[in-house]
């Protein structure tokens, strides 16, 4: 691997993570900024014992490729066309090698090569369907069907989504009938605690109090309408930031727009002003949630889906209560003192609602 030239050339010694050491012509090695810096700052690389230790991502095979690249590019006198032709040929590698090469080039801070390989990878990804991309890169297909159908994906105009959403809506209605009381595993560590708070305070702004009041009042009225909005809620993603958009989007794409609340949502969609959007949202979410805060509902969604992946296991009822209590506590912190009284008053009711929602969603996912 080390090409020893008879002329007086200086070499730099490089060591890869597997321990093998090679010597490389100085001007070639110095083309990599990371090596250049090492040599200049620490003086390493001048002999075998003081070989520069290359970052972990650089294995010997890919190092060879990189050095070929450097060897060609550091020579002055190549026309732009020649360089381009060389580059085009250089990146004709399989995807595994391309990825390793990109990674290694990045760790050596060889930006032109990173750009070149990234462009090659982008060209591979561009225009392919998700299945094809997964095939090419051996990505695990580990999103649940629900997650795939999220409005997030709707941004890419897939017409299948509308149809599938309708099917899901119908299915959920059916499943509602078959509810039994079962205990659900609950306490999943929240991933985005902070974002819940942020979102809540953003939505609520100064409306925390009025919302609670409204929740209490509209609770009964909304029992009837729970299906439709809950379907849309079930379609929601776990991530907090998308909650509002997605609940709106789901409602939009759901075929059956029967209720006032749903049509409210549809109306909201026409409205381009985001301020109006959000204030409407406050109002509507209060209508749906059995008196639960939308953020709470989203958290529940998230937990349910996480759980669904792990399948059913039976947990004591107490776990669920503890969780529900934990939810309340967090809500109390968010809404401040004025709402405390109202919430503590409703504590028991809410915990039952939590359980109900939870387990409804679980069933849906399990059966789908």
């Amino acid at each position: 691997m080390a090409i020893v030239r008879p002329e007086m050339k200086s070499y730099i010694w490089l060591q890869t993570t597997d321990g093998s050491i090679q010597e490389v012509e100085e001007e070639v090695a110095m083309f990599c900024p990371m090596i250049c810096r090492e040599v200049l700052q620490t003086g390493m690389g001048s002999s075998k014992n003081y070989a520069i230790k290359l970052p972990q991502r650089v294995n010997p095979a890919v190092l060879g490729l990189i050095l070929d690249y450097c060897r060609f590019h550091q020579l002055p006198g190549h026309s732009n066309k020649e360089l381009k032709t060389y580059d085009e040929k250089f990146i004709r590698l399989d995807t595994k090698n391309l990825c390793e090469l990109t990674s290694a080039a990045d760790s050596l801070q060889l930006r032109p090569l990173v750009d070149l390989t990234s462009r090659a990878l982008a060209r591979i990804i561009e225009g392919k369907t998700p299945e094809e991309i997964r095939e090419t890169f051996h990505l695990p297909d580990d999103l649940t069907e629900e997650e795939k159908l999220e409005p997030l994906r709707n941004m890419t105009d897939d017409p299948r989504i509308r149809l599938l959403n309708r099917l899901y809506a119908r299915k959920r209605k059916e499943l509602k009938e078959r509810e039994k009381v079962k205990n659900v595993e609950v306490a999943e560590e929240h991933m985005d605690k902070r974002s819940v708070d942020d979102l809540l305070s953003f939505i609520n702004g100064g409306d925390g109090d009025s919302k609670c009041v409204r929740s209490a009042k509209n609770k009964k009225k909304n029992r009837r309408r729970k299906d439709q909005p809950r379907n849309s809620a079930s379609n929601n993603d776990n991530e907090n930031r998308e909650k509002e958009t997605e609940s709106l989007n789901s409602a939009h794409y759901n075929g059956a727009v029967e209720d006032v609340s749903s049509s409210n949502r549809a109306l909201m969609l026409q409205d381009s002003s985001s301020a109006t959007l959000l204030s409407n949202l406050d109002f509507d979410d209060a209508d749906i949630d059995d008196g639960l805060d939308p953020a709470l509902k989203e958290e529940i969604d998230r937990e349910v889906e996480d759980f669904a992946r792990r399948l059913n296991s039976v947990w004591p009822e107490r776990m669920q209560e503890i969780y529900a209590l934990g939810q309340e506590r967090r809500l109390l912190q968010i809404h401040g003192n004025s709402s405390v009284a109202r919430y503590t008053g409703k504590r028991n009711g809410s915990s039952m609602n939590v359980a109900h929602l939870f387990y409804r969603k679980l069933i849906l996912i399990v059966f789908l």
Partner: protein
Amino acid sequence: MDKSADEDFITDLPQSIIEIILTKLPIRDAVRTSILSSKWRYKWATLTQLVFDDNCVSPFNDRIAAENKLVKFITRFLFLHEGPIHKFTLSTYYLQSSPDIDQWLLFLSRKGIKELVLEVGEDEWFRAPSCLFACLKLTSLELLRCELDPPPEFGGFSCLKYLNLQQVLVAPEVIENLISGCPLLESLTLSYFDSLALTVRAPNLKYLKLEGEFKDICLEYTPLLVVISVAMYMTDEKTEHFEQSSGCNFDKFLGGVPCLERLTGQIYFTKYMSIGYELGKVPLTYDHLKLIQLYQVSFEDMKEILVVLRLILSSPNLQELHISSSSNAITAFEASDLNFWETDCPTGCTLKRLKTVKISDLSGVPHEMEFLKFLLKNSPALEVMSILPGIYVSCGKLNVVIELLRFRRASPKAEIIFIQDQI
């Protein structure tokens, strides 16, 4: 190949590389990666360089539907986006001015936007909202077809380096204040302005490109200017107006650019520069000027010829000269002042570094030929002079060549290449 043994190599690349890859994809494909796998769900959401155009939506015949789709796409995208946005480009034909754009700009102003390109549809010009002027981290701003009306307290973009305004409706003092208010401005492009009288004070300006109808341009303080490119449109009324304008345009324009390296003037540029010429002061020497390109020079106007000569003679290090002529041999009247070349023309001047000369649209009028003679006589280092005759010159070509043959050449290496039309 055993699928289970193959690993996924791409997902675990550092996020910075993933972002580079996603940035090289059209934004629609970048968002599509969200359903590849659970780890890929939000890799796209932290992109800092966003480019939106009409390819984000499938082609529609109905423009309104396309517009709605595009608005929804961008709005949802921005809503789901995380982290700062450094570069935002919106270039669309479907989308007309709309309140959504205002909201996006407000959103961007909170995300630390640095480079902004905005080009919207043609029917109704977009009126820039005040939040645009709150994007104080802007380093590059490019606007097409919009109305600018900054609030009175707006002091300029202190980080702006690149400004490109095309077809922008704005009051002249606003532009001047904008330019003065951006002390770091290095590149200024103003296109398709109407009747703009402009005074430019920009201590760091290096690149200037102007295109349109300018009433008056005064480069008052631009000491670092390196490249100038001007395409000056003029109507005939304007030329009369110019005759009465005070001051020497040449001095006003090129009087304060000692570092100039490239000058390109098109359409009526030399005409503009010739106005007030006789009032000119002692010319500045452009020691760094290496390339002069002057298009549509009228060799029938003595003043324009004087402008060209002055430019050439003030540039001792000139290496390349491109001139295109707007004269027409068929309609040219009898040339006067031909004595100028014998008597008043500065003698003893040598263009020591001039290597390449390209003449195009040559029609063979006397002044043109005298000019060529002058060049050949005074360029000891000349290597190539290529001449492209004008398309209307058919029978006069031979005469031109015969005359050219006679001219004395100061440079032994000079090649005169007469380009035949490729028909």
